[in-house]
């Protein structure tokens, strides 16, 4: 619409003086450049707030988008008659969403309340794209009732350098899923509760003997992207007693790293316990879901997302009508009991999204109100309506998670032992380096070589060996 109006104006302009028509044509472009922008109409005195999220109705994270448009906006506007709230949906690859938001914030524009992956908080803060909530939202921030409901570990998702930049939306946890039917076929116990990596290998060997095509699916390679790091390398590293980034130092070619990659080698290095090709395929992860649902995979490391959205009996990507009977889950064991980080027997990794305030917001006060409103107990409950997932609020979780034993398991058993990724800008590249190390092992390299190559790459990324721990 805007375009046609604009051209119309230009045409009138062009007709006014016919003698120098060509010159006018030249001017059209210039005019078009200068006069045809969007006007942000902030109608008469009232406040307009915008929410940006990587979700879109009818597409990715559709429920979340619908929640914003159908619940948050009307409810908030009801309570604040002079505020108009709009929603700016995206629903694309996380990297692309991140790019768009970065560009917006870089040019000091963009929505007032913005969804971010917790892992981006550090780099956004370093770039000056976001500021601590208290700096933007004022004194009201510290007095918010919700803080007491969010466990400290979950609050960590929005914290960088000890300052709170965002409100966490919820979290997740990683476990081993297994197919009970296949386990029975292989004569394996139910419930299965492995306590060491060796037990996983043993189960895989039994499954293989029982004719299971892919006994173990441990995400590897670059094609799986962050799923390799979060569902593979990092839990293994934690199980070997090491975190990727602690006290300002990165984990390089350490014994823990060699152990983690060693497990990859055991699975993909010719034992037939895993399918190396599946790790290389561009859509390998989607395929792993489909194959699990078809009963071709014995053990699969995934987050609770797998339970909620993949094998979910009705709306899942690879629905399993008999999910509750067939799909078992168990905590990821450390290499050997007590060998995990903090001396744990079991380990996990967690992530989660946060919502931040745009420091360049014209209405920071109302924006905070909106943000706080979106994280109120009522809003959180509404957000979860019809689906079960782990929210950031204990009060809500207590109420909602009773419906799903698996998610209760995550909340009660897994979250206490979990760990989070470091929120610094170079992390995505370190993650890629980790993925490349697993890729090297999957295609036949040795764990030691891959680990050494990773060390070299890591030095280049983090500014030398001085920033790498032992």
């Amino acid at each position: 619409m805007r375009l046609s109006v604009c051209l119309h104006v230009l045409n009138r302009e062009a007709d006014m003086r016919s003698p120098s028509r060509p010159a006018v044509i030249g001017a059209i472009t210039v005019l078009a450049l200068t006069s045809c922008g969007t006007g942000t109409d902030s109608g008469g005195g009232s406040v307009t707030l915008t929410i940006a999220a990587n979700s879109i109705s009818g597409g990715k994270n559709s429920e979340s988008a619908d929640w914003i448009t159908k619940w948050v906006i009307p409810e908030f506007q009801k309570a604040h008659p002079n505020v108009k709230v709009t929603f700016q949906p995206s629903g694309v690859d996380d990297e692309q969403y991140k790019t768009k938001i970065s560009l917006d914030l870089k040019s000091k524009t963009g929505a007032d309340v913005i969804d971010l992956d917790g892992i981006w908080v550090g780099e956004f803060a370093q770039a000056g794209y976001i500021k601590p909530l208290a700096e933007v939202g004022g004194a009201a921030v510290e007095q918010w009732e919700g803080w007491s409901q969010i466990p400290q570990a979950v609050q960590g998702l929005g914290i960088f350098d000890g300052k709170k930049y965002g409100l966490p939306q919820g979290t997740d946890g990683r476990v081993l899923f297994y197919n009970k039917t296949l386990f029975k076929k292989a004569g394996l116990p139910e419930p299965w509760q492995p306590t060491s990596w060796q037990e996983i290998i043993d189960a895989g060997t039994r499954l293989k003997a029982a004719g299971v095509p892919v006994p173990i699916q441990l995400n590897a390679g670059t094609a799986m992207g962050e799923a390799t790091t979060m569902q593979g390398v990092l839990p293994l590293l934690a199980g070997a007693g090491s975190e990727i980034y602690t006290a300002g130092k990165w984990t390089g070619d350490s014994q823990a790293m060699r152990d983690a990659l060693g497990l990859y080698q055991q699975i993909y290095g010719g034992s037939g316990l895993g399918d190396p090709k599946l790790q290389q395929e561009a859509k390998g992860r989607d395929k792993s879901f489909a194959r699990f649902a078809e009963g071709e995979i014995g053990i699969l490391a995934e987050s609770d997302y797998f339970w909620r959205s993949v094998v979910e009996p009705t709306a899942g990507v690879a629905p399993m009508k008999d999910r509750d009977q067939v799909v078992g889950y168990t905590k990821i064991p450390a290499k050997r009991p007590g060998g995990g980080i903090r001396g744990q027997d079991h380990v996990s990794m967690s992530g989660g999204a946060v919502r931040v305030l745009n420091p360049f917001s014209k209405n920071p006060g109302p924006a905070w109100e909106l943000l706080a409103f979106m994280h109120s107990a009522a809003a959180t409950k509404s957000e979860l309506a019809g689906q079960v997932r782990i929210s950031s609020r204990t009060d809500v979780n207590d109420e909602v998670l009773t419906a799903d034993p698996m998610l209760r398991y995550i909340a009660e058993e897994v979250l206490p032992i979990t760990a989070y990724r470091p929120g610094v800008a170079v992390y995505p590249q370190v993650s890629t380096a980790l993925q490349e190390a697993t890729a090297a092992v999957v295609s036949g390299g040795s764990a030691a070589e891959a680990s050494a190559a990773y060390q070299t790459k890591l030095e280049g990324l983090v500014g030398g060996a001085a920033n790498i721990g032992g």
Partner: protein
Amino acid sequence: MSGDAAGLGKGRATAFVLPALVLITVFLIFPALWTIYLGLTDYRLTGLSAANPRIVGLDNYTGALGDPRFRTSLWLTLLYVGGSAIVGQAGLGFALAWILRSRTGAVSRLVEGVVLLSWILPSTVVGFLWFALLDRDDGTLNALLHTPGFAWLLDHPLLSIIVFNVWRGTAFSMMLYSAALENVPPSHLETARLADAGVPQQLRDVVFPRIRRHVLTNLLLISLWTFNDFTPFVLTGGGPEGRSEILPVYVYRVALRDGELGVGAAISFLILLINLVFALAYLRLLRGRNGRREIAAAGGPHT
């Protein structure tokens, strides 16, 4: 070639060129120069360098040239351009133009139609099409060839994207050569045929000399386009393990995934320079024989 047939004069000619020139200056030259400038900085999308980018001179260039992954990517790109554009598209395009030039039947129209269709389908869609064709588990190709489980995209990733790009881009060469062949007088071909020249000799002695400049333009354009073609990303994502990571994909990974915009910009400029080398090489090869006159015709004023 007489100058200024329509009596434009300098003023009107300028006015005709001006709108395009303004648009190109604002939306092409300006961002391009800016990008080239970014290539000299350590600018990143996020993190500390996003707030305070520093000029790092040629570090990005030396860094890229020293990165084995870049060198691999460059080599893959050269194979990709050579295989899919120079040999594949130009070769198949010419073959089709040559065979279809004298045919008017429904079959030839159909062939022309599908070739063109594969050129104009949206790139986002063709990725899925080829995925469905080459998939390991139940791709159409494996079903047809009775080779279940053959992982085309994993075992032959470069070949796969080369064949893909031949499919994707042959139409342009075909159209261009069809038009070029119209310029070859039939009498010349008949003369050659009377002299009992086989098809290769006809092409060498009669056709090629007359369409030399079309060949040049075609190679220039399709190499440039192929060099900057991002579509294979949809198919292989650059994998497995970077074995199909051609330069545009490499730039995407560096600039968007890793957020290293400075490095990405530097590599973009390197791609430009490589294209320039290609262009000069073509000029030399194809204009070598009757050199000066044609260069004058292309570069200088027409006479």
